[in-house]
């Protein structure tokens, strides 16, 4: 009996709140509109047309501003602190250094190894950019993960693509393409089979998977949060059934958990994105094929 007290109490409190928040009698509920693609479309703040197709419209909207703001914030945060670095870190430096060293030692050194230092700026910048934009999804005012909009993901992935091909050319010269396409130890008669596969894997699959992985996680995560929040909100405020009101309140409560998970996923994806970029660079500059 005693064990039932807590769950019964919680249910009781939820029922009480649901009852208190119930719509007034005679309320005609608005039709429920489930979260979907329209939650990922934003109001155009400004549009500049460069042709007939909408594919060439320069649209300023919320995700774009978010991306630009994140860039400004990152540079405004890192540059002043980096100018006043001391051997023994002070409190802000400690925080920045923690992030920087997380990428430098945790990702760059372990993945690339020899001569990793010159790739650290790229990896740190990618990491903080992706992390910040992912966390915008749970951050008040922004509340949207920028990379749930695939165009920006593609842009960042293009930079990664340029970075690892550039790293390979910087290391091997034009021989890089040979090194990448025909790994050492492969007999020459297998080249016609291996080279297209390697080409696909190195230059097409990598950027594609990077894009889809980051975009998909952010998109689905944001949709998941929306389902709990929008659905819960509708159930609490529109439904005339007390049971649904209570369930809506429970859904609200659970959305906090989902948001916590989203924060973790946002970090996880930023880490993974950076780690994979580092691995691609490592495979570009490696001599041990």
């Amino acid at each position, binding site marked *: 009996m005693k064990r039932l007290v807590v769950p019964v109490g919680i249910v009781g409190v939820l029922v009480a709140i649901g009852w208190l928040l119930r719509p007034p009698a005679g309320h005609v509920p608005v039709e429920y509109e489930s979260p979907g693609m329209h939650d990922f479309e934003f109001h155009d703040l400004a549009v500049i047309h460069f042709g007939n197709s909408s594919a060439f419209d320069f649209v300023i909207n919320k995700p774009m501003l978010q991306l*630009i703001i994140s860039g400004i914030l990152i540079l405004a945060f890192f540059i002043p602190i980096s100018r006043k670095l001391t051997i023994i870190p002070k409190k802000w430096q400690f925080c920045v250094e923690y992030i920087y060293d997380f990428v430098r030692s945790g990702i760059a050194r372990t993945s690339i190894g020899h001569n990793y*230092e010159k790739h650290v700026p790229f990896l740190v910048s990618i990491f903080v950019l992706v992390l910040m934009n992912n966390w915008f999804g749970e951050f008040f005012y922004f509340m949207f993960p920028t990379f749930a909009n695939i165009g920006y993901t593609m842009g960042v992935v293009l930079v990664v693509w340029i970075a690892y091909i550039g790293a390979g050319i910087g290391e091997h010269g034009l021989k890089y393409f040979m090194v990448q396409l025909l790994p050492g130890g492969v007999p020459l008669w297998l080249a016609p089979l291996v080279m297209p596969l390697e080409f696909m894997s190195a230059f097409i699959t990598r950027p594609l998977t990077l894009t889809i992985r980051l975009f998909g996680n952010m998109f689905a995560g944001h949709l998941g949060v929306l389902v709990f929040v929008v659905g819960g909100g509708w159930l609490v405020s529109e439904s005339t059934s007390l049971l649904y009101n209570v369930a809506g309140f429970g859904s609200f409560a659970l959305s906090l958990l989902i948001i916590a998970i989203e924060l973790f996923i946002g970090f996880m994806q930023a880490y993974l994105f950076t780690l994979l970029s580092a691995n691609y660079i490592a495979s570009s500059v490696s001599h041990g094929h």
Partner: protein
Amino acid sequence: MLSALCPLEINLGPLAPHNIFEVAIGLVTAGLIWFGFAKFISPNFEKMYQERARQIEGGIELAEKAQVEADALREQYAEQLASAGGEANAIRDQAKVQAATIIEQAREQATRESTRMVEQAKAQIETEREVVSSQLRGEVGTLATTLASKIVGESLEDDARAKRAVDRFLEQLAAQPAMKG
């Protein structure tokens, strides 16, 4: 444009970017941040890491130097200790030798002194004995004459004869070797 390439209109939905400027802005933003890090931020960090590593290495080096110095000092100290011990031993040995010499010298001197004193005493005793024996000789003559005159009486009152007899007797006495002791 897409429909011209593909026979079927494919709606990519959220997988299609809304316009190419999204991609461009993504690329430019990421590129600019990369540039910012490469140009302004990372050099400072790398410098700081190098400086930190240098200081740590410097600290280790300093400690090593101190260790070497300490070792040298300890060796020196041990050496000094050893040499001081040796010196003390040498001094002790020297003192022993000196003491032995001094004792030897003292003994010699004492022996010499005692010999000298014994000789002196002997000489003195000899002299005294000479004096006593010459005195005794005079007295013995008188005593003997007195005794003899008492024994022989008036017969020996004749001075000349008596004198001869006494002289004879004293000559016999002188001829005898002096009594020892």
